[in-house]
């Protein structure tokens, strides 16, 4: 999926550990993700697979016990891991911004919407009145009725869906090159989810920014994204265009994930399908394939050797599974 020079963000073989009292948790291992200019890249996977960690690692807002052990994050030609705190802060809210999972807690409860929206424009030239007008325009664009007077309100006077709209308005007010969206619809109900996704899609088209969209919801990813990265237990197991991933999933995990999507179930059933087993413990370095304990197609090689990414089609669709290795003989 590497589009060469067109990429805005290139995460190359990023590995990241969390220090914990019981040992080091290898939260990300050799994660490679590329976000081309103007495209929307979805990151999907179960809870705890490291997809949010990836987003926070890019904007470098992880907890203090996180430690990058390898790889690089190249954004607009510079490795973000080489930047000091001041240089990194200059990028945040300027070249990149973020939408968070829980709109109920993302806004400061004792500052008005206006104060918070004007605050984030602190680097922009112009006076208070101009920044206020910008804020009102941004609210209007995300569909907040009567934005002029709503600027005076506090976050608790809005519903969850409205608060997420405000967060989106703020994230896009700064016209970033890259928008990181960390499960922005998870805390909202289904009807709101559709509205928010449509809104994001429209605004992205207007502004032309790139988006890294983190979600566990396959439906929203299919709806919104151009490319998809499937993560499992801290590793990228498959990547490709939305069409490739959904029509021709290569990795057994992606296949299982798609089978579990209630929206794709054709026959009537009383039992929703699940993937048996749990995400493996990431405390020790795993041997072999990360998915071997839950994989229906597991064979001997999976237990000893970590699979490399194998191309499925020529357009950059790859998956890390020994079954796709054309050079080896088929398993018995």
């Amino acid at each position, binding site marked *: 999926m590497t589009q060469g020079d067109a990429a805005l963000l290139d995460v190359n073989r990023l590995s990241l550990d969390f220090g914990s009292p019981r040992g080091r948790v290898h939260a990300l291992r050799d994660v490679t993700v590329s976000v081309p200019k103007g495209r929307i890249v979805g990151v999907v996977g179960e809870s705890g697979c490291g997809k949010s960690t990836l987003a926070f690692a890019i904007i470098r807002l992880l907890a203090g016990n996180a430690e990058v052990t390898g790889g690089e994050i190249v954004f607009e030609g510079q490795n973000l891991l080489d930047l000091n705190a001041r240089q990194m*802060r200059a990028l945040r*809210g300027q070249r990149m911004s973020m939408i968070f999972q829980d709109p109920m807690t993302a806004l400061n409860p004792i500052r008005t919407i206006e104060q918070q929206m004007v605050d984030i424009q602190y680097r922009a030239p112009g006076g208070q009145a101009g920044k206020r007008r910008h804020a009102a325009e941004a609210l209007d664009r995300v569909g907040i009725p009567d934005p002029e007077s709503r600027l005076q309100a506090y976050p608790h006077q809005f519903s969850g869906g409205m608060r997420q709209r405000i967060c989106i308005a703020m994230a896009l007010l700064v016209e970033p090159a890259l928008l990181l969206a960390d499960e922005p619809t998870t805390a909202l109900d289904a009807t709101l989810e559709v509205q928010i996704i449509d809104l994001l899609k429209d605004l992205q088209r207007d502004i032309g920014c790139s988006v890294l969209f983190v979600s566990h919801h396959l439906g929203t990813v299919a709806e919104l994204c151009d490319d998809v990265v499937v993560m499992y237990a801290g590793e990228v197991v498959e990547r490709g265009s939305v069409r490739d991933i959904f029509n021709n999933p290569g990795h057994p995990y992606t296949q299982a994930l798609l089978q579990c999507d209630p929206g794709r179930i054709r026959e009537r059933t009383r039992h929703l399908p699940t993937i048996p087993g749990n995400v493996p413990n990431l405390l020790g370095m795993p041997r072999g394939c990360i998915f071997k304990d839950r994989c229906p197609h597991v064979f001997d090689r999976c237990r000893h050797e970590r699979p490399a990414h194998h191309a499925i089609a020529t357009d950059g669709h790859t998956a890390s599974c020994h079954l796709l290795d054309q050079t080896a003989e088929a398993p018995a």
Partner: protein
Amino acid sequence: MWLYLVRRLFLAVAIVVLAVTLLFVMIHAVPGDPAAIILGPRATPELKAALHAKMGLDDPLPVQILTFFADVVRGDMGTDVFTQRPVSRIVLGQLPFTITLILTSIAWAALVAIPLGCYSAIRRNTMIDKVTGVLSVGTIAIPSFVMALYALLIFAVLLKWLPAIGAGQGGLWDAIRHLILPALAVGIGWVGYISRIVRASMLEILGENHVRMARAFGLPERRIVFRYALPLAILPTVTVLGVGMAHLLSAAVFAEVVFARPGIGGLIVTAVNTRNYPIVMGTVLVTTGLFVISTTIADLVNAMLDPRVRESL
């Protein structure tokens, strides 16, 4: 808002009635006949009986309580058994000394402790954080009267920098010099206490989502701390300070006794020792009132800081 104040007023009355009633019951459980103590060992039974009748001690307890409140409503808090002066005048005469002491103590404690707590939270696990942590626990653990005694010994007796007793005669400067040691002794435990509370709530707020969001927009750390986190982190401290007035009153009692300062504290100790019931009642009435006022002020300050509280008033 007005509804809140009316509700608060009713609550205040309820608290005062409850406190005074409790005190009546407790005083009656304490052995020792006030008349015998007041009149001395050679008093005749007739004199005692006369004094009992005058103080209303022969009435059943509920009647005494009701009589007391009826008098208070009329603005009469009784008369001092010894001097025959009105209790209200005596108590209100001593009140400014105590209020000055408490406000000075809490003000300097808060002014030192809030920045200290903030600093410890921002630079957590550094040397300064650890040192203030240990010192805080130390000052919280040492009772204020021990602090008062050592402050007296070191600064007044050994070093002779400051006067040892009294509240000073004439002149603002003299009054201030007399206030320093008691305020130091009363406030120092609060420095530790408040700085710990501020540190804990600051750490909690700095870990919250909205702070992370502010950081994701690249806001300067200084602005995040002072505009986004501190006004929120200060809320529990304001409540604690409001309730803490009660605690400070008892700390002030010790300080006033140790430094022989005029004030409510010295007054109540003497009154209890001499079974001077009207003074005891009057003092408790006033201090309970002070407590209600200080918690109300704390609530109002919180409402000023937090729009969510403002709406719930």
